[in-house]
């Protein structure tokens, strides 16, 4: 009957020997093969150097795009608020007007313009009356 300890010892021994032989075969490559391996490695590394700048360009590009967007918003916002007052500006204006008088606070410039166009005939008549009175 086989001794299992002896078998495992034998196995470990020949595996160690096999490992050593494989190490030697990898170490003792001829110069031509070593040179070709070196070329293969350089070819692979060249791929890395080509890819690297692109990898760094992506976050840089994103950061530039965000900065441009923020700048555009910053430029556009004051211009926009000059054309139409912001809601909080309107609120503060209404509060001030409320302190002065409720009638003034209820009328906005848009309402004035609408009223003017609705009573256009009256203003024309008033103008004509004025001229007749002058003459």
């Amino acid at each position: 009957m086989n001794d299992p300890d002896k078998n495992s010892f034998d196995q470990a021994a020949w595996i160690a020997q096999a490992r050593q032989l494989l190490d030697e075969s990898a170490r003792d490559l001829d110069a031509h093969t070593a040179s070709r391996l070196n070329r293969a490695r350089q070819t692979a590394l060249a791929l890395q150097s080509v890819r690297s700048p692109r990898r760094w360009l992506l976050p840089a590009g994103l950061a530039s795009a965000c900065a441009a967007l923020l700048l555009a918003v910053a430029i556009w916002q004051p211009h926009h608020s000059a054309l139409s007052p912001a809601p909080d500006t309107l609120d503060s204006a209404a509060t001030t007007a409320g302190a002065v008088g409720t009638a003034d606070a209820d009328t906005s410039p848009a309402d004035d313009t609408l009223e003017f166009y609705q009573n256009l005939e009256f203003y024309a008549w008033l103008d004509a009356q004025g001229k007749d009175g002058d003459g």
Partner: protein
Amino acid sequence: MSGIAGTISVSLPNSPCVETVSTNQRALDQFLRGVERRALRMAELASGNRDEALDLVQDAMCGFVRNYAGKPQAEWAPLFYRVLDSRLNDWHRRRKVRGRWLAVFNRDSAEEEADVIAQAPDLNDPGPLLRLAGNEAAAALDQALGNLPLRQRQAFLLRMWEGFDVATTAQTMRCSEGSVKTHLSRALAALRRALEQHQ
């Protein structure tokens, strides 16, 4: 335009990004230098041809750099051997398909087939240099490893030569840990048989 180019070329070498890239490239170079010879031997044992093996290793290196160079360095070895294993499997599959087609075309010319076999190198003949004492064991091992099925050979080389544990070997070979154990056990039995016959 030349002014802009000049500004870039002057400012880049000082940037931390470029330093990181060159450090990474140095580490990558060191890593590939460390594994290339073993990888070549693995590919050579699988293909039986050094030129094919060199092509396979270069292909594996390029695939590794393209896909995994950004991964942590601790993961590089299993990932590199995973790419190599994948290339060896592809090569093995292509050769099987080609062999099937050649078998169909050569079916009618049995005499020619006999001639081809007669002209093929005798694997038992180690050749003039390998007859020398000391090289016989290496030749016998090469022959025994070369005769193993691809998966068994890879399991043996990754576990016993590269020193990967069962889990890493399974991850590298894209199979279960149970399969790795089975492949390895069969490989050890076959190698032992082959080497004992040789003695």
